[in-house]
């Protein structure tokens, strides 16, 4: 157990149903952002995103799964869309949520959805509705206090969920690649680091890349994927893509999941067939001996 996870334990977070921790954190982010800077396009738009997300989850979960689904995941998706999408229109908020949740039920491999739903939804909007939609970028001031607040709460909660290593790996990788980009482009290092000090990244590093449903299982692989997301993002940034992190996760995330699924299939097939000549079965991605599970 990490020290951050122990802190969360001391605060009693470990006694909570883990499914509620991410919603609690994202709600804190929303409140801090809105109280300090009024960073939402409007409450009504965010409410529309959340409502659509929950409504779609209830509808599709009941129709396709036969039971009422737990709504924590849909709430997180909805609130993320409500904060990350920037548009003077209302419909992009509803549409982005609807795309996000629908993708979760449609695009599944071996019962797993392979894209982070809100990442897919936002990428879809940025590509298909660029004339109307942008992403959260400058709407959260440029001061340290809100970011520290989010980092403190975020680290404790994500630590309690046993996923802080993903966030830490990504941040360290981003900074390293920022230095590399600065060396390549000749731009100031601080300019290259600047994006990660903005509000969009706080949501990205605490919610999107750590999403338990769409990340690979082994801890070392999670770190590798986080590193690769930062690496591909650096490539996009060198090509001057403004929304580089979304695109990077959109590409790296599913590939990592598909690789893990393929390896799991092979392992399952090998386990189901007779062992020949005493050769070991093909294993999926190796797991750690001790692992904090959510």
């Amino acid at each position, binding site marked *: 157990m990490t020290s951050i996870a122990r802190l969360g334990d001391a605060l009693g977070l470990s006694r909570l149903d883990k499914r509620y921790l991410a919603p609690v954190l994202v709600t804190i982010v929303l409140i801090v952002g809105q109280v300090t800077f009024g960073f939402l396009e409007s409450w009504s738009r965010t409410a529309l995103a959340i409502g659509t997300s929950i409504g779609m989850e209830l509808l599709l979960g009941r129709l396709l799964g036969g039971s009422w689904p737990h709504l924590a995941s849909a709430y997180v998706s909805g609130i993320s869309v409500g904060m990350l999408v920037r548009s003077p229109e209302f419909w992009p908020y509803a549409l982005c949520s609807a795309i996000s949740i629908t993708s979760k039920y449609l695009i599944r491999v071996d019962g797993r959805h392979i894209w982070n739903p809100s990442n897919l939804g936002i990428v879809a909007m940025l590509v298909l509705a660029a004339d109307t939609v942008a992403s959260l970028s*400058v709407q959260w001031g440029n001061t340290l206090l809100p970011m520290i607040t989010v980092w403190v709460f975020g680290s404790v909660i994500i630590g309690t969920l046993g996923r802080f290593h993903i966030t830490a790996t990504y941040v360290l990788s981003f900074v390293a690649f920022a230095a590399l980009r600065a060396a390549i482009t000749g731009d100031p290092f*601080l300019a290259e680091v600047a994006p990660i000090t903005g509000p969009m990244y706080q949501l990205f590093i605490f919610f999107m890349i750590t999403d338990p449903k769409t990340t690979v299982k082994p801890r070392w692989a999670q770190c590798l994927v986080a590193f690769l997301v930062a690496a591909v993002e650096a490539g996009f940034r060198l090509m001057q893509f403004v929304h580089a992190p979304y695109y990077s996760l959109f590409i790296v995330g599913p590939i990592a999941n598909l690789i893990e699924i393929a390896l799991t299939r092979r392992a399952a097939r090998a386990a189901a067939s007779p062992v020949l000549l005493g050769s070991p079965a093909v294993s999926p991605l190796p797991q750690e001996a001790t692992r904090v599970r959510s």
Partner: protein
Amino acid sequence: MKSYARPLLAVLFVALLATPWLIRRYGSRATATAAARDARSSYGFRLVESAKAAGLDFVHEAPTFDAKLAHIMPQVASMGAAVAVVDVDADGHADLYVTSSREGSRNRLYRNKGDGTFEEIAERLGLADLNGGRTGVSMGSAWADYDNDGFDDLLLYRWGRPELFHNDAGKGFTLVSEQAGLPAWANINSAIWFDFDRDGRLDFFMGGYYAEGVDLWKLPTTKIMPESFEYASNGGRKYLYRNLGGGRFEEVSAARGLASTRWALAAVAGDLRGTGYPDLFIANDYGVSELFVNDGGRFREVGRQTGVGYAPKSGMNASLGDVLNQGRFAIYVSNISEEGILIQGNNLWVPSSGSTGALPTYENLARAMNVDLGGWSFGAQFGDLNNDGFQDLYLVNGYVSASRGESYWYDYSKVAGGHEVVISDAANWPAMGTRSLAGYQPKRVWVNDGAGRFVDVAQMVGVTDRFDGRSVVLGDFANRGVLDVVVANQRGPLLYYRNDVAPGRSYVAFELEGACRPDTPAGTRCSNRNAIGAQVTLHWDGQQQVQEVFGGSGFCAQNQRRLHFGLGAATRVDKAVVRWPSGKMQEIPSPALDRVHVLKEPA
């Protein structure tokens, strides 16, 4: 999952992905793109660019600041092209004063000869050579008759030393800055005249952009940039100069409640509450707009309470117009919209409640009325361009047009969202080189359909330029009963769009003159001679429209003070009601159509 569920889900998913395209294809966003053989018959007017023929040969030049800013010079030196309408010799023909900004460049005063052409007289009158590293360079001008002698005086604002020039009967100008007590240095980007205390003497407001301690030619540090892209308050202070008479002014901003160090780019003053006192609206770059209501000569900031000061954007314009013919002003603020990167959207603040004297509340109807997306928007003005009885909207835009194939947007957005330590230091901004930033943008000429929607007809009516527009003004330069358009472009030519309105559309116009004179004793109830602050409400065909005489509006701009009402096919006007700044009311029953009414304040 049932066997048919997945295909159905796939259909739903594809339909969702196709929705943006369907909305674009079949949505209600109104832009006139269909070829119109005759714009006049389709839209009621066309605009013909006629600067050269009219003798307007001005091209704006930009300044060069301290070498520490060389890597982002196009971005920093991106303002200063401004135009104001003034009748400098009081001959009844609207003249133009245009500012340039390169050190050593000349401002221009184009006198309207009354025959459709202009002549340059700034050199002769001593108003040309006003840009230099020691004094700063021009950002704009505001004109008004501060001593009520019948001739408009010049307030020239700079990034540098602002200056006040007294107009000596149209024959020359005398520098009176010292007597007026103007600051030695301030980076002013907006100034307007208004009579905030209604004493019959015009006062003026100046809004600082960079902090007044910043001398852009001698920078000891590069930490001069905004501390935040949308929450910055490290800009320039505000100045409110109260006219004491006799050419003397007193700076009273603190005493009268105007304390702000946001990055002001535009201001307009108008009576938004029906109190008779002009309220002050300031559009700030890198932050929220501010609305200072005027409680009998003292100001109170109510942006949040009224709704206009809640969401921070990049305010670059402030203009007022009665867009719904409801007898109340909406406020138009321009911001930044770049496809896929930053969609702030412009704001059209329409009053949704508020009785006389009470605080109004505003709702942003820019999206609903289709005036939200204008690119990197700058100056805008309301005016009835096609004389149909409704206020149209002319918007200019474009930030830095350089290389067509290279964009600075990525680097700009990268730093703009960063921590204040990063964004506030120019040294951290990547080199701009020859890249464009929101360049070569199409302008917007939004025609008001009278039913709450505007349609962009710019390309159809002849506004096809792609210069980096800054300041736009409207005026009837040939006394033809139509509003012509003049646009000042950064690093570009002055454009003069001559308006050709379709026949069969009437108008009525009013030129107002207040009763105060230089020798009027203090305490006399009379209006400033320019009648700045006077409101005229026109009643016809069961509708009404209010207009006010402004002492500056838009972005670094000042329209002709004459109030122009288009009337469409109307054959009579019921009445015009004038509320003078002094509070006197005057009713003109059935004013004659198709003429300019010269109204003098009654005793």
